[in-house]
Each structure stands twice: as C-alpha cells, then as structure tokens.
C-alpha cells in the first residue's frame, strides 16, 4: 500500500487547487487555466498510481477488509443526546472494483474537460474555481463508503454544476440550470430519507464495545447489524424496505437518467458549455448507476432480486425509447444527449440480469459510455465553436473541409454504434450475454437488440447529414481541428480502441468485485465463505 492518504489527495486536490486559484488575479486567465490543467493532470497521475498499486483479487463490496486504500477515522461523534443516542459519522474512504473504473474515468474526463475549457472567456476565474469544486464532488462520490459522506459529496457536486450551466450556458441556461438543480435535488430528498431510515436501523460495535447507530454503508449491508425495530431493518416485520428501495432507486434513476425522469438531460446538455456537457455525460450520469450498484443492490438484496425484471424493463425502454427519440432530433447536441439515454439503458439492462457477465458489462459500459460520449460532445463542441450552429440540416459536406475532424468523428460514431474493436462493443455484448443468460430478462434482452439497429440508424444518418454530400459553401472557411483539439481526441480514441482490443485491462479490475457483488446480492455469499472466500 501507499504511504500517504492517496484517496483523500485525489479527492481534495481540486479543492486545494481551487483555493490556490483564488489567489491568482483574475486577469491572468492563462495561469488559471494552466493551474487547473496541472491539478487535473496530477489527478490522472494519482489515478494511475492507484491502478498500479491496485490488488486485482480483493473483492470489497461488503467486506471492509478487502477494500483498498482505506482511510477511516471518526469524523463527527456526538454522545449523549437522550432520544437520539450517539451520532457518529465516519470519514471513510476506500475503493474496490466497482469504484476503481469510475475513479479512472473521473480523472480522465476531468483532464480532457479542462483542455476543452481552454476557450472559456467569460469570468475565467469563477469558472475554473467551480470546475475544480465539481471535480472534488465527483471523485468523492466514488470513494466514499460512509453514507453521510457520500451524500455530502453527492450534493456538493450540484452547486457548481448549477452555476456552470446557469452562467456559462447557452440561451436558455437559467431554465436548464434550475431544472437540473431542482430535479436532482428532488431525487436527493429520497436518498436523504432512505439514508436517515437506514441510519436508524443500523448499529455498529465500536472498539470499546458500545453499540452505536452508524452511516457506514458496509455495516448497513450486514443484516446482523440491523436494529430489531428499525424502520428499515430486515428483522422488523413491518419494515418499509420496499418503499425505501423504490425511493432511493428513483433518486438515483433521475441521475442516470432513466425514463421517465430523463427530460432534464437534453435541456441541461443543450445549454451547458461543451466541457460541462462532457463532464455531465462522462461522469455525472454514472453516479446514478453507481449508486444503485453500491447502495441499493447490496443493502437491499432481497428487493433487488424481486425487481430484476422491472429494472431490466426500464433499461429496455431507455435503450429503445432513447434511440427512437434521438432519431427525430434536429439538433446535434440533443441527438447525442438522447443517445446517452439509450446507452445508459444498456447499463440498467446489464445490472438487471444479476449475472457476472451482465454486471461486468454494465460497469464496463459505464466507463465506455463515459469516454465515448465525452468524445461525442467534444465533437459537437468543435463544430459549434466554428459554425455557431448545431442544426443537423445546416451542414453538409464537412468531410471535404475538415478531413481529420471527420476521421475522429467516424471513430467516435462507430464506437457509439458498438462496432467491434472498439470498447463499446465489448460492454454491450457482455450486457447482452448476461441479460440473455437468465430467464427473467431474456425477452427484454432480445427486444433491446433493436437498439443496436436504431443506434446505427441515427448515427450514420447524422454522419451523412453533417459530413457527406457536397460542401455547403457557407462553411468553406471552417478550419480543421487544431493541436489542442487533437490533444483531446487522440487520447480518447486510443482508450476506446485499446479497450476494444484488450478489454481485459478493464474487466480484470472489476471482475472480482463484480463476482462478489453478484453472489452477495443473489444470496449466495454464505456458500462463498464456505468455499474459502
């Protein structure tokens, strides 16, 4: 293990950067940008260090000792409130195979988004300060193992996002920002309520032998820790676990976004500046599915098993509905936004199968969607920067004018279509292998394959409308991609193709944890312990 608290560092480094940044005079926008770039670059390096020291065989999920890079100490401890007992919140960080890919993704996407933020001109200092704050919030969500801490990070991310859309956004930015904020907050209430319910239903034995209520997520996963009469205790015959599950699921589903809670997404995407769209699609959406996998699944395994078909159904709806609606869009960015809805459906479908292949595919799809959609939004950004329009029918023939750009577009589009040799194919294929493999979701999986077809439909049609045909003379002054844009496209393309050819690089990271999760949620974990786990 590493000698320094690396998870805290990777999480709070952006905040340190933000504080440093506040000392830079606002005229020196170059220094501000380079500082942010340096911070995010260090974050990438830290993520790579994490990966290099990562133990591929440690499961995590429900077992504290097999989490890695743990940092745990008592954070808030108030004793002796008569009616409440002791309030205890831990500062508890750690990662396993579910969060490691997300940490990598967050670091990469933040770095790329910083490069993409280079042409922000309006109040640069404020922008990058908020940007770094957002970065901390995102990273924190993926490393926190205490529910209270998780919730703080979850909410922390909302505030900068609100301002980043609301100030640096497009013409309807206020509407989009408020919609995003309130919608997510609405979901957060459910999560908060469930969190409190779980708190009052879970106890933990401290070192000195006292039993206290706790926000520890891992403690909540063990039925032995539940209080006999807690509102969400499995021991309590009148518990409200089912309702709590649905409530929290909705809270996370809004973030995914799952039909019918998805309509904030197109608005937010269309209005947000390019780098923020990149972060939104690249990282924020993953928090929803991550939350479900990290919290809903292992804390409420019995309800998860009951609802597999329903989760799969919503996955299927997302896939097909998102694709069909994307087909009808006339705005490039909106089309990509709806394609996100469709692609996140695969994650849900894979999760719903509760098989190794399905869940591995789901998490891999989260990562791949992060990189692929980030690239797609960057692509929209490039053309919007130059032409100041995103209408699909306003272009034509750009392939002759911007050949290198078109090359990257082709790579990204085919990655989104799920072309083999690119990462998206592997994750989608695993999702299908998993969801077809169990009877519950088999029919859903068969119907969902239509998404493969529709995806090809809207993507290729877009490619044709914007890039093929005779060049629209209006655009004969557009420049091809510059070096800065290449610096965003090349690494993403390399990741996409590398993981398409050698997916094990990512799958091996998550495999052990996914197996454990699947077995834990399926109720097989006892037999695993007997088999020497």
């Amino acid at each position, binding site marked *: 293990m590493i000698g320094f608290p690396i998870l805290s560092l990777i999480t709070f480094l952006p905040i340190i950067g933000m504080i440093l940044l506040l000392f830079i005079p606002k005229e020196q926008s170059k220094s501000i940008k380079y500082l942010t770039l340096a911070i995010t670059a260090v974050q990438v390096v830290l993520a790579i260090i994490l990966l290099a020291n990562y133990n591929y065989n440690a499961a995590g999920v429900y077992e504290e000792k097999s989490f890695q890079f743990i940092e745990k100490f008592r954070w808030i401890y108030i004793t002796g409130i008569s009616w409440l007992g002791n309030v205890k919140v831990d500062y508890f960080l750690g990662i396993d195979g579910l969060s490691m890919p997300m940490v990598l993704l967050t670091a990469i996407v933040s770095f790329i988004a910083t490069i993409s933020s280079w042409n922000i001109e309006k109040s640069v200092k404020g922008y990058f300060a908020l940007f770094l704050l957002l970065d901390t919030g995102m990273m924190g969500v993926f490393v926190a193992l205490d529910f209270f801490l998780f919730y703080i990070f979850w909410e922390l991310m909302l505030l900068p996002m609100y301002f980043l859309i609301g100030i640096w956004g497009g013409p309807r930015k206020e509407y989009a920002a408020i919609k995003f904020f309130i919608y997510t907050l609405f979901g957060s209430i459910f999560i908060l309520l469930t969190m409190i319910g779980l708190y009052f239903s879970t106890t933990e034995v401290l070192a000195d032998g006292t039993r206290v209520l706790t926000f520890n997520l891992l403690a909540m996963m063990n039925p032995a820790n539940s209080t006999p009469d807690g509102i969400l205790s499995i021991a309590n015959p009148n518990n409200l676990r089912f309702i709590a599950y649905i409530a929290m699921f909705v809270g996370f589903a809004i973030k995914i976004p799952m039909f019918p809670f998805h309509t904030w997404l197109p608005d937010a995407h269309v209005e947000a500046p390019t780098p923020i769209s990149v972060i939104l699609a690249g990282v924020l959406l993953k928090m929803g599915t991550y939350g479900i996998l990290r919290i809903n699944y292992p804390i409420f395994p019995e309800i998860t098993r009951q609802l597999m078909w329903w989760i799969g159904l919503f996955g299927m709806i997302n896939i097909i509905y998102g694709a069909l609606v994307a087909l009808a869009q006339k705005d490039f960015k909106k089309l990509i936004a709806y394609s996100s809805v469709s692609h996140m459906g695969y994650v849900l479908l894979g999760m719903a199968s509760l098989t190794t292949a399905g869940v591995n595919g789901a998490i891999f799809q989260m990562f791949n969607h992060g990189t692929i959609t980030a690239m797609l939004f960057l692509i929209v950004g490039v053309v919007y920067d130059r032409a100041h329009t995103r209408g699909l029918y306003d272009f034509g023939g750009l392939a002759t004018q911007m050949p290198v750009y078109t090359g990257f577009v082709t790579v990204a589009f085919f990655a989104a279509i799920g072309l083999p040799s690119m990462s998206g194919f592997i994750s989608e294929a695993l999702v299908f292998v998993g969801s*077809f493999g169990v009877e519950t979701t088999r029919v859903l999986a068969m119907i969902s394959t239509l998404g493969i077809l529709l995806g090809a439909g809207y993507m290729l049609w877009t490619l044709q409308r914007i890039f*093929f045909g005779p060049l629209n003379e209006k655009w004969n002054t557009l420049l091809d991609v510059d070096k800065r844009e290449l610096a965003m496209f090349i690494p993403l393309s390399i990741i996409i193709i590398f993981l398409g050819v050698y997916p*094990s690089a990512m*799958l091996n990271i998550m495999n052990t944890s996914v*197996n454990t999760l699947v077995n834990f949620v399926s109720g097989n974990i006892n037999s695993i312990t007997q088999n020497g786990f």
Partner: protein
Amino acid sequence: MSESLLVNLSIAILFLPLIGFAIVVILGKRFPKLYLLEVGILTIAFILSLIVMFSKLSYFPKDIVSEFTWITIGNAPLNGVINIDLGIKIDNITVLMLFVVNLISMLVHYYSIEYMHGDKRYTRYFSYLGLFTFSMLGIVLTHNILMMYIFWELVGVSSYLLIGFWFEKKSASDAGKKAFIVNRIGDIGMFIGILILFTNYHTFTFDTIFEQIKNGVIPFSSNAWLTAAGILIFMGAVGKSAQFPLHVWLPDAMEGPTPVSALIHAATMVAAGVYLVTRIFVLLTADAMLVIAVVGAFTSFIAATIAITQNDIKKVLAYSTVSQLGYMIMSLGVGAYAFAFFHLVTHAFFKASLFLGSGSVIHAMHHEQDIRNMGGLKKKMPLTYATFLISTLAISGVPFTSGFLSKDGILAGTLAFGKLTGHWLIPIIAFTVAGMTAFYMFRLVLLTFHGEPRDHHKFDHAHESPKLMVVPLIILATLSIFIWYTPNPIGANQGWFLKSWVKTPQQVIPNETRFSFMVGKENHEVNVEEHGEIVNSLEYTETMHWAHYKAMFASLALAGLGILLAFMFYAWKKFDADKLAEKIKGLYNFSLNKWYLDELYDATAVSGTLNTGKGLSLFDQKIVDGAVNGSAWLTRFTSKLSGLFDTYVVDGLVNFSAFFSGFVGLNFRKLQTGKVQTYIVYVVFAVIILLFFFKPF
C-alpha cells in the same frame, strides 16, 4: 513446414493488410506514394496464402486450431467462469478462401492503380481496401462465432466506407448507409442466435459447440430452439449475402467504385454469408434447412426477374450476384454443401472478372454505365470482350467452364432434394433461374459488345484498357475454365476440388431433427467410397447419382434456350424487346422497378420508424417533459395561492386584529373625555347594571 509455422503464416496474412491500413490511413496524405505499400503488402499476403494453401492441402489432412483466452470473467463459484477465446482454425475451406480472397484482393489492388488514377482520395482508397481485406480474412480464419461476428461487423464498416467512397454524391452516401443498416437487421438475428448458443454452451468456439450438440445437449432442451438458433444465425447471412428480404442494399452498393464492387460486392464479402452457413451447416435442423433453401430459391428467382430488365451494366451484374448467392444459399439448404462452396469459389472468379470487365468498359466509355448507349465494343476492346465472354459462359453454365461444374452440382442437388422430400418447387425455381441467367447475361454481352455502337461519340473515344487492368481480367477468366478444378469437364466429382478438398460434413444434431436422407448410417461407408462422393447417406448418394445427368441435360437445354432467346432478341432482332415490354407493361415495370420493394420498405419500415421517432419525440416534449414542467408549474401555482392566502388570510388576520384593536381603541377613546362628571355618570350606570345582574332577589 510445421503446424506452428502454418499458424504463424496465417496470422501474418491476417494482420499484414491491417498494418497497411493503419500506416496508409494515417500517413497517406503526406506520402501519396504509400498506396504502393498496400499493393506490395497484398502481393506478399497472396504469396503467403498460396504457400499456406498448398502446404495445408498437401501435408496436413487434419484441421489446425490455435487459440488463446481473450476475456475471462466470473471466477466465483456458482457463477461459473466465462472464457472468451479468440483463435484461428485452418482447414481446407479456410485455406481455399484465403487463396480466393487474397488473389482477388491483390488483383483488384493492381487494377485500381489505373482505375482510380487521379482520384483525390487515392491513398485513402487503398487503405480502405486493406481494412476490408483484413476483416474478410478474419471471417475466413476464425474458429469461433463471436470473432466471426466481430469481423462480420468490420467488413460491414469497410463496405460502408467504400460504397460511400465518393460521399459527395448523395446517392453514394445513401447507399453506404443503407447497406450498413440493412445488414444490421440481419446481424441482430445473428447476434441473438449467438446468444442462444453461448447461453447454452458457454463458449463461442464452433467445434466445442458442435461437440456438445453431438453429445445431446440441445439449447434450452428443445429442438425448436435449435432450429431457431440456426435460422437466427442464418439471418446474418441473409443480410450479408443479400438474400430476400434484405437483398435491397446490394444493387445500391454499386455506387461504390467498380473494383470495390468486384472485390466486396461480388466475390468475397457477399459470399461471407454463404461461408457462415457452411460453418454452421452441421447444426442446421431440417426445418432450418428448408427455410434456408426456400429463402435462397426465392432470392435467386426475384433477382433473376429483375436483372432481365435492368439497363445499368453494374445493376445487371449486381442482380445476377444476388441471384447466384441465392443459388449458393439454396444449395446449402438442400444439403449440397460441397457444391455450394464450390460455386462460391467459381463464382468469385467469374463474377470478379465480369465486374472488373464492366469497370474496364465504364472506364473506356468515360463513366457511361447504361448499356443502351453502348454496343459494338468488341472491336475496340477485344481482350475485355474475350474475358467477359468467358465469364459469361461460366455464369450461364456452359460446359468446359467452372460455372458449369458448380451450377450443375447445385441443380442436381435441388433435383435430388425434390425427389427425396417432395419439395419440387425448389428444383423448378432453380432450373428456371438457370435459363433466365443465361438469357440476361447474354443480353448484357450482346448489348454491350455486339451490334452497332449507339453512342458514336463515346464509342469513338473508347479504347482497350491499360495492361494493369487487363491482366487481372485475363487471370480471372482463365480461372473460370474447368481445368483448374477437375480433369473431367462434365464430372466435378472426379476433380480434386470435391474429391479431396471439400467434403460435406456429417451433421451433429439429433437424428430426429434432420432430414431423413441426412441421417448417415455407419455401414454405408463402403458404398460412399464406391460412389466417390461423400454425402450424407446411401439414399442421398443414390439420388444424387440419379439426378446428376438429368440435371445436366436439363440445365444445358435451359442455358441453350436462354442464350438462343438472347440472340433472337438482341442480335438477330427476330423479336423486338421494346414491343414485348410494351405488351406486358405491368410485368415489365414490376421487374424494372425491382418489385417495388424499396418503395414498400420506405413506406413501411423506414417511415414507420422515423414517424415513431417523431411521435415519441413529441410525446417526450409534451407529455413526459410536460409532466415535469407541469409539476413545476403546479408548485409555483400552489405557492402563488399560498402567497395570496398568506397576504390576504394569514396576514389579513394579523392586520385585521391590528385594525380591530385600533378601531376599538379609537372608539373607546371617545369615552375618555377627561371630565369627572362624565365619569361619575359612567360609574352610576355601571353600578346599576351590575346590580341588575347580581340582584340578590
């Protein structure tokens, strides 16, 4: 030569074109001469594939498999381990295909040097050819169905890129898009089929799957699922090999450069579907085979009827390709496995020759493709004419050509199938199509090369094509002669191709799911040897024997009739084709407009999907988002109401009580006069009232 060397050579053959693609696509713009690298690579790959083919066929009777584990997930108990292997399998079919693909690809590379000369994306073109060759070789070499699917999609992409190579033309980019999407429809079926197999057998490797089926493991323990798996995987072939109802993309794909049409859309990629079916042949149940036979027969018929009236030289060839692919598919469906593969190979050569020949004509005529504006070209382009004619004879099934051998076998197969199962419609269609093929192919030859030139301006400028284009034609036409396949021009079975290289494999599925004639009986080995044919059962062997000469004479007669009719119409002008067309206008238009299938699809599937999308988009905006905005509005409305309530009721009460106390105070103040007399009067009154209330009585 050792096995491992053979494997390494095959892997080299596979990856060389990919390396070429990567280098040329990235650096091609800076170094325009890089196309020579591509051409060189393909030449090397061809030589290697020659070596591989000869050594495999001569020294390695057994199949060679080499594999490694690509993905391993799931190591926990109860979940089982999922291993996904990648690997190659080198058997006779593989090496023959390697040879065919590399030869034609190489010839097309050389041909394109001239044909594409002066194109502004010249090096890009060659890099795409490299990508295609890589993907196609992947399909050929793979030993498992997932990898097949992977390369299947990759050929789809290279085909997309090459069809839409001249993307400035809307028709070209439309055609590319159509090809990709229509193919994806088939691929979905194939993918589900693969999922069925994987779910049940936990592997993608063909041989392991077949082994398990042989041991009696049936998908979901039901023969219906076995049939379904076969048909679903076959759907992939329906897309790629342009079978009805997904054949509509192939004629449109002629928008691509002609050498591409020759390589991809005639000789190799479209044959991948047939190749796929040969790979899964052993798990096809009787029901699945019947479906395959019917689809193939119907496709070959539809395409032939359309080809008769087309006027674009490439369109005629495209429909003839569809028709011939239908033949191969049908042949697999009726169990004539070896002949299907044989026809795949012979067709690859003569159809590539025909396409490259048409390219030569188009090149000479300055991009004129309408045969009504051609004529008389045989004097100007003797070599092109000669090769084109040989290939036409081959496709028409005239003796001494390769096409005669393979086609005859297919026809015999259908005839035998008719006799054995009673499905006589299939041989009837097959023979009809044979006659039609001869007719429309000679129509094409006569209108293009014979008679008087109809466009004198273009004719005067026409010239024989340069050597780089003509030599490939000669090589391919030479390969359309029987001698390469068998010493006996009327007996393909005596040839080395069928006798020792390609044999029909025994099916692995349970006996009750097979056609009865596909159930082999062990003790018939001897008879099989006697007949010199490896087929499924004695009964089948005998029926094939019975069918052989009958089919040959019938097909000869029909081909002769077709050719004769073509001469009567277009050379000797005994009949007037235009008048006939006028007479049967309905039928003529039906054929000319390709059975109106494109219109039908546009009106139903395409616009249906688009309209659903539009409808859902509206639903999304108005209803789903409406609900969100509505609830926001409701919240604001409620807050406004409570605001009003607050102002008028809650605050009203407060104000009212203030007002009331003020009012009361104000009025009571009037009593406070400050005069003692008044106060005395009040007191007196008060006392009286109090006394009245508390009166003691």
